């Protein structure tokens, strides 16, 4: 008790409250100090991915260049190069592995923001400081949202470079072809490029933040975030995305390879739908005229046969040229959703404080 203490008397709140509220930048150090573990984890994950993608990506580009430069394309040596391209980094080829990245980032950065405070009870300290509860929440969520979205955005630039060869035109040798000419709109690859990757990461983070507030415990909140995100991602990829713009419908048989085929069906001369099994029945009856394969006709001759006999194939598709339009649409609604979820989280903090809506003991 001997240390001299500052002798300023407590200032009256009336004086201070008329002044501006505490500056937002005060939360910068707070956010960093409390989440540096999660943020460095994300940085490490992304760093590892960058390294991996860089190394494998160089191989992929190299193999592509070698395969396409090889002449004649049907020679054995060139076919070998085609095969080696197809085999390089093929675990990443469909892009589904990388779908986990936004989910993980969102869950492990977003969920603990509120869940950890509520689980450990430290919100009783944090939200009774001068800065206040809802402003604290808003500052943290917005800061972290921007950070994770920006990092994801940076990674998606690298991803676009990585997947570049897979969108190149069809190239074939004698018996093998490059696994290229994927549609840029196809699920698995669409959301790794453009603005979609950053937007999905942002959405996962926002889901995590709200889950943390509602569930109030870290591990269940993380799991709930992963589950909700997965559900949303599947719903978007399977049901929503194809409806962003009205799909084009054509009866032509040579739909461009880069188009994203939403559905295909055959109609009889009279306009009735016909199943694949009925089609193969028809084809079997026309056996001598065809290449001799049962089942789904793959060769052009099968299709021509069907067309000659009055059948039409209607293809509903989205052309590759709509890639960026779709990107902005998807990015737009994900951004709106994220903003809504974050606003909802902040509103819940403001309204409810930190207490459960059930009676405390």
């Amino acid at each position, binding site marked *: 008790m001997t240390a001299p203490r500052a002798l300023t008397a407590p200032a009256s709140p009336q004086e201070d409250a008329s002044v501006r509220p505490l500056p937002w930048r005060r939360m910068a150090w707070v956010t960093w100090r409390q989440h540096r573990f999660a943020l460095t984890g994300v940085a490490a994950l992304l760093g590892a991915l960058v390294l991996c993608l860089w190394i494998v990506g160089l191989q992929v580009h190299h193999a592509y260049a070698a395969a396409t430069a090889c002449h004649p394309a049907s020679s054995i040596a060139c076919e070998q190069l085609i095969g080696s391209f197809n085999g390089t980094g093929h675990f990443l080829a469909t892009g589904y592995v990388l779908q986990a990245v936004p989910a993980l980032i969102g869950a492990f950065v977003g969920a603990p923001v509120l869940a950890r405070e509520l689980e450990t*009870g430290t919100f009783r300290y944090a939200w009774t400081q001068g800065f206040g509860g809802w402003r604290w929440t808003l500052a943290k969520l917005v800061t972290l949202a921007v950070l994770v979205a920006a990092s994801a955005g940076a990674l998606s630039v690298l991803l676009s470079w990585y997947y570049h060869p897979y969108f190149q035109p069809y190239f074939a040798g004698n018996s093998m072809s490059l696994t290229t000419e994927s549609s840029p709109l196809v699920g698995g690859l669409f959301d790794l490029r453009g603005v979609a990757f950053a937007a999905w990461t942002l959405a996962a983070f926002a889901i995590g933040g709200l889950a943390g507030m509602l569930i109030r415990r870290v591990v269940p909140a993380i799991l709930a975030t992963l589950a909700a995100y997965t559900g949303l991602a599947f719903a978007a990829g399977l049901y929503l995305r194809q409806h962003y713009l009205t799909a084009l419908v054509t009866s032509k048989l040579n739909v461009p390879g880069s188009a994203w085929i939403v559905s295909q069906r055959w109609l009889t001369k009279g306009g009735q739908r016909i199943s694949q099994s009925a089609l193969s029945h028809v084809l079997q009856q026309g056996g001598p005229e065809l290449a001799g394969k049962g089942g789904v006709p793959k060769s052009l001759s099968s299709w021509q046969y069907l067309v000659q006999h009055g059948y039409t194939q209607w293809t509903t598709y989205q052309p590759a040229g709509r890639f960026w339009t779709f990107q902005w649409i998807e990015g737009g609604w994900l951004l709106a959703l994220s903003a809504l979820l974050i606003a909802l989280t902040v509103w819940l903090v403001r309204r409810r404080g930190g207490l459960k809506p059930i009676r405390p003991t």
Partner: protein
Amino acid sequence: MNVLQASGLGKRYGGTWALRECSLTIPAGHVVALVGPNGAGKSTLLNLAVGLAAPSAGRVTVLGGWPAGSPAALDGIAFVAQDAPLYKNLSAADMLHLTRNLNRRFDQASAEARLVELGIPLKQKAGRLSGGQQTQLALTLALARRPRLLVLDEPMAMLDPLARHDFMATVMTAVADDGVSVLLSSHVIAELERVADYLILMSRGRVQVAGEIEGLLASHRILTGPAAEADKCSQRPVVHVRRALAQAHLLVRATAEDPVPPGWEAHPLGLEELALAYLREPGAAALPGPAHSRNAEPSEVTK
């Protein structure tokens, strides 16, 4: 200035009311003891006062009229919750930095000096400190904000006697130095008699007793006399009766000047006895002001 003013304050969780019809006016410059059994609504009242919960009914203002939870209220009130929450993986120095960032006023120098005095190394992670040290750290952070009101929710529940003494010594010194008002809740009444000068007694979500302790003790007396006369002897309101075969004790609202019925003895009483008697009589109340006339006449209950 009133540090806390509640009118008709209530809080409902789901279907149950944790706090009902709470009306209080607590003047500044006091050390207020908030006492009651578990589930009485003490934590609820404190949470409403510091803005961690929003009222379901009525309103509560603090520090002379600011709504609870508003920026001015947050500025002037420092809260140390039960179990002294701290970030366990942050060092004491980090906690200081954190608190400094989150508040308008922070006396860094005195906080550091105090930690040195307490023997708490600044680089030590908060989770590695002992229970008493954690509570002292939380209290240091709270006091360094130079609040006008310090709110403590069962601060000493986990502390050993020495730590409890040191804790209250720190709080009382802050009262002596800065004139900060204190509102502390506890369910151990005996310890509070030394430090508190204002009592709020809560039971089952309602406030039963509110007033300065000196006044309360001066306006209550224990009358001891024959059990047979217990029901009719006293002119003054009887709060609680304890009866044996031949003898009875009545807690009455009377002062030392009031006449003692013949054949009876009058004694003064202590805080614990007063509080226990009221807690045993849920219908009884000792509240200031005409607004509570409904409860002003306590019921007489015989055992």
